[in-house]
């Protein structure tokens, strides 16, 4: 499928990003970096994250009221057909303006183009839901899978990538749930599909889809783990078989799932550190935390407060000792701060909001609005 954004610029953008990283490490002189910027030009419009957010918000508003505006002309027609027709028109308009803006305003995932793409997809879904009313869930899954895949291939958008992934797994699950035998094997099928996705994209070095691949990797790692997680399988089993018991019953092959729950996070973390793969490492840490949660859901004798206390002490101790241990880099793993913290200011505010305030109940609340300054801690 033809790609929407200028591939050449994307390569040049990547080159200049890599070279500014080298420049920060004094591997290149500033003159060389400047020369690289000249030799490898790119003209994308790439505003900061906050302008992107603003552009996205206002583009969404504009898109929604655009539908309202053109629906004025369809007022007398009414009915399902008119509404389908209306959304097709809207969809085409969004796509035309999307292509126009990418070409002429040089947008590159800048908020407006994201909003227009999502609006176009939403508009494309409307006739589908109207025409195939009460269809099997499979039909919707296949339709959305095709739509999301086409959008992802052309625009390399992150949300549509997630959409593809979700549609694919919903498709798998709804197929497997049709028969009792395949129902029992659902966890394994999910794990196999997730592993298949991971290994098929692992060595893809395409720059155009670099972020999509990162997202897909993270999603497939998480799904692979959840497919084998004891908690998910046990609760899911109870849910799917509609057992309304206070405690969900033990599952078949329980030891297999114990093993998966313990081994997968450990494997992720070690492999992530060994292969310098940040996605793998972070997902490893998160799944490890979820494994702890799984364990405590079934076996823990402590109260929540005691667990929090113990978890806090263990985490602080672990982090502090690793920081001390990595004072000088070991095994090619370091504790060096790389790059500037772009959002250091917001981090500080977020930290303070979480750690709470003041021993009494407080907070300035008017009519449901919670002011930035008055956030009372959930703790005390």
């Amino acid at each position: 499928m033809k790609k929407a954004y200028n591939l050449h610029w994307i390569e040049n953008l990547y080159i200049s990003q890599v070279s500014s990283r080298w420049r920060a490490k004094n591997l290149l002189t500033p003159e060389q970096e400047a020369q690289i910027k000249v030799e490898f030009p790119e003209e994308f419009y790439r505003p900061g994250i906050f302008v992107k957010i603003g552009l996205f918000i206002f583009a969404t508003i504009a898109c929604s009221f655009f539908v309202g505006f053109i629906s004025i002309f369809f007022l007398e027609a009414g009915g399902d057909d008119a509404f389908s027709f209306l959304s097709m028109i809207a969809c085409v308009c969004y796509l035309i303006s999307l292509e126009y803006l990418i070409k002429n305003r040089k947008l590159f995932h800048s908020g407006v183009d994201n909003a227009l793409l999502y609006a176009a997809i939403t508009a494309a879904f409307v006739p589908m839901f109207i025409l195939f009313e009460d269809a099997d869930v499979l039909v919707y899954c296949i339709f959305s899978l095709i739509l999301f895949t086409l959008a992802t291939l052309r625009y390399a958008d992150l949300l549509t990538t997630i959409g593809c992934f979700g549609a694919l797994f919903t498709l798998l699950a709804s197929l497997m749930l049709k028969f009792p035998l395949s129902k029992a094997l659902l966890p394994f099928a999910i794990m196999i599909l997730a592993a298949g996705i991971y290994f098929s994209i692992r060595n893809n070095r395409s720059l155009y889809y670099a972020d999509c691949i990162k997202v897909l990797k993270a999603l497939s790692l998480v799904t692979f783990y959840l497919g084998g997680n004891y908690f998910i399988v046990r609760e899911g089993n109870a849910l799917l078989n509609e057992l309304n018991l206070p405690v969900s019953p033990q599952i078949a092959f329980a030891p297999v799932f114990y093993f998966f729950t313990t081994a997968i996070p450990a494997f992720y973390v070690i492999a992530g550190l060994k292969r310098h793969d940040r996605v793998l490492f972070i997902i490893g840490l998160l799944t490890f935390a979820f494994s702890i949660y799984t364990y405590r859901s079934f076996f823990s004798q402590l109260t929540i407060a005691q667990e929090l206390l113990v978890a806090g002490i263990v985490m602080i101790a672990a982090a502090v000792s690793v920081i001390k241990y990595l004072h000088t880099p070991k095994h090619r793993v370091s504790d060096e701060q790389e790059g500037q913290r772009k959002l250091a200011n917001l981090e500080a505010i977020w930290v303070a909001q979480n750690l709470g305030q003041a021993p009494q109940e407080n907070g300035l609340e008017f009519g449901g609005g919670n002011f930035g300054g008055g956030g009372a801690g959930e703790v005390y």
Partner: protein
Amino acid sequence: MNTRTILKALVDKEIISDQQSSVISSYETTRPFSIHWELRSILYLGILFLTSGIGIIIYENIDTIGHQVIIATIACLTIACFAYTFKHSLPYSHDEVKNPNKLSDYVLLLGCTTFLALEGYLQFQYTLFGTRYGVAIIIPTIVFLFSAYRFDHRGALSMGITGLASWLGLTIAPLSILSENDFTEERLVISAVILGIALVALGWLSCEKQIKAHFSFTYLFMGGNLAPAAALVGLFTHPFKIVYFCIGIGLSVFFVLRSRQAHSLLFLLMGVVYGYVIITYSIFESIGSDAAFALGSLYFMLSSAGVIVFLLKYKVFLGIKK
């Protein structure tokens, strides 16, 4: 595209020499893997969990464990944290102080939160400050603000500002419990507006006078959300709409202009969003609901397209050179 192809392209264009290329490529292959942020996140979550756990355990066991034991434990922890921070701190300076000690920032954060727990416990158990809740809140606020400036800690600063806000909220809120009428609510709105503007002014001053200029963001952000949001509430629900309108618009313009000097697009976003809401509300309020209904979709479509054009070309409008 990988390191090798980039280096080849750079050598081909004669930007770098072969020798430099091999230096870079050996750097890339031996570069260590940094887990700095992951470790910091675990540390921070650990502090969050620990202090939450302590807080709940105190409340649950308030009658069974000896009070002295609890107080002594938390007090020791707090003192230890502050002692550690003092010991590893650098002298005060008006500029940003970069502390080479990797942990002192987090130890201070832990100390501040355990101090809160300690004070809350003393107040709960012994009503140390009686019914003067204001005193109970202003003490940690002062401690936080002092720590923020002494140890150069933005987290402590925003905790201090939060404390200041709740101090105002609390000393005013009892009046609203007494009378519960619109008048007292409006007092709350007014004090929120005043506090917000004061914080914005402080942030602006700290930048102008170069006294901890990097704190300016925290002041501006917290004050700059408090004041326009309160002004919005005032505009929606209270008389003297024109006053609130002027305050809100003034702040929005200030933020849009400010974003040029501070190179902070967050302020641009805040200014644009608050300004848009205030102007839209005022227009619809003044033309009446029938006209608003008729023109609504056209207005929103065109106005948001206008804002998009502004945001796409904000550099031109604000005179920012790339």
